[in-house]
């Protein structure tokens, strides 16, 4: 197992390194002169001169070769220095740290919400294969997976805020604020997870060891809960990890609709404002976060699945 973790971590370092390169290249490919933009941000558009732009170009190291700029940038972010926002002039890291709790709160709430729906729905649907319950769950999951989340958000607002006034539309702070964003974000994920749990259960229930357990006289309840569920869940863990990535995507849209002060909204606002420093930092952060989640999921997989736990250790 140590061997596996080592290998997996090595891969992680390569990928993170690749991610920093990709982010850097992406930002450098953006149209426009960076020095000019920094100058505009610093001095305003009206009192801008060519000299000032050149000064900034030199002082910010923007005249150096690209790879020098890259390592310069890399050494800065390694120290937690993401530069300054072109709009507000504040350090980017401060701004991001301030936004993290809101995004985390929203993601975890939606994750919990989606699992609370998906696990029972998926299991029941698989066990009662081809029944009305099964068809109902499948249709619901199909709709849930295809409904655009921004549309769902608007419908929920229309229904629960505008028509009935049960929950507030915008804002952050109280428990009632989180309901609509969390439901919006969790619905799609619940649908996809339900499908996967159902598929996983159906697959496991077909396996020889399930038939063999039944042949040994083990009760149906025990077959499902002790023999099938654990096997079906191992692949689902991976998917939940991948779903967390989709949750991160979703936060971008949901946070902008509900004015939720998280990272997603920060990213969208900075794209509107072309605040490159913030965009760069946000993208990097999202990617690293995503990679780390995947690593965690892989490790969890290893802990749950004895086949990997022991095999990789020996071989």
């Amino acid at each position, binding site marked *: 197992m140590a061997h596996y973790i080592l290998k997996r971590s090595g891969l992680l370092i390569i990928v993170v390194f690749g991610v920093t390169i990709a982010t850097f290249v992406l930002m450098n490919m953006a149209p426009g002169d960076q020095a000019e933009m920094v100058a505009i941000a610093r001095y305003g558009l009206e009192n801008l001169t060519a000299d000032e732009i050149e000064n900034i170009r030199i002082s910010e190291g923007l005249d150096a070769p690209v790879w020098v700029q890259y390592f310069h940038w890399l050494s800065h972010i390694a120290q937690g220095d993401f530069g300054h926002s072109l709009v507000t002039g504040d350090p980017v890291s401060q701004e991001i740290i301030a936004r993290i709790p809101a995004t985390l709160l929203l993601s975890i709430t939606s994750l919990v919400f989606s699992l609370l729906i998906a696990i029972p729905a998926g299991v029941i649907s698989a066990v009662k294969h081809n029944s009305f319950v099964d068809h109902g769950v499948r249709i619901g999951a199909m709709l849930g997976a295809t409904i655009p989340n921004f549309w769902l958000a608007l419908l929920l607002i229309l229904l629960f805020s505008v028509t009935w006034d049960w929950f507030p539309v915008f804002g952050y702070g109280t428990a009632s604020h989180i309901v609509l964003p969390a439901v919006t974000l969790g619905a799609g994920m619940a649908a996809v997870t339900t499908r996967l749990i159902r598929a996983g259960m159906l697959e496991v229930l077909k396996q020889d*060891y399930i038939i063999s357990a039944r042949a*040994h006289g083990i009760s149906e309840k025990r077959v499902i809960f002790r023999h099938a569920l*654990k096997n079906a869940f191992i692949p689902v863990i991976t998917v939940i990890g991948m779903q967390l990535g989709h949750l991160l995507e979703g936060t971008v849209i949901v946070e902008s609709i509900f004015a939720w002060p998280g990272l997603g909204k920060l990213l969208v606002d900075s794209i509107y404002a072309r605040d490159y420093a913030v965009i760069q930092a946000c993208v990097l952060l999202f990617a690293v976060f995503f990679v780390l989640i995947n690593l965690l999921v892989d490790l969890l997989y290893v802990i749950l699945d*004895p*086949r990997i736990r022991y095999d990789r250790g020996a071989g």
Partner: protein
Amino acid sequence: MATTLLSIRGLTTVFHCRQGQIEAFNNVDLDIDQGQVLGLIGETGCGKSVLGMSILRLLPPNGVSRGQIIYKYRDLLGLSPQVMQRIRGAEIGLLPQNPSASLNPVLSVGQQLMEGLRLHRMIKKEKARVAAQTLLGCYGLRGFNNRYDEYPHQLSGGMKQRVLAALSITGKPSLLIADEPTKGLDGVARNQVVALLRQLTRETKMALLLITHDLKVAANLCDQIAVMYCGEIVENGPVGKVLVSPLHPYTQGLLASLPENGLHPIPDYSPGVPGDIQGCRFYPRCRYRQDKCSCQTIKNKRINETYVRCLSASEGREN
């Protein structure tokens, strides 16, 4: 005179599919006495494995059986699912077909054995642990104390089969169904399985229904042989008769195809779906065929101790 343990009468199993019904086997009669080893031999797709699963009532949801399966004076097909569940493992055990996939990969070997022991013998955890170890010791996994907490994928194929064998007799069943226990095994491994099965039947005095395509394995283990072709039992008799002087042309052909008998093939192939064949199902490939074979339902004929489903079979006919 041994008493009859399991008596199958007129058993038919069909699968309902999109294209309609597909018949697995038709009108099967079979008896197993207490302590007897019955070999059910036949080629791929003849329905022999489905027969084993039909007895345990473990068919997939689209499979339906008709007829009677009388086990100790009770018709298994008439029992409620709960009662049937209590019969599985405790009265009729199964040694499943594919040892490498038949143990739960996420539970340790010890956990799986203990589960069976506690279920069937109503004993406490600690006692079950000891019992599990004894059981495994008996079936050739020496030093199993160390293996108790291992997971199935850490065991070799032969070891898994031994674990499954131990597991299948935790409930001390009177009948064990072994479904193709030697499938996919090379010579040496096959010998070990045969030895294991012999040990099992000898020590527990239980009856064994051995489902196999391997004539040599059957010859080594069985008292009685039933030959299945295309969903029908075509010949059923003592091993010394069926495999030495077979009466049905199919059994004769099967024996002649063995390399040591000169590899004389049966012409043609067995039909895929036998549903619409009237009369003898072996008719198209049979070298003794007569016109009457294809138009009437063939009844079982008794010659000495052997039942044979062939119009032209008679005592003296040899290959």
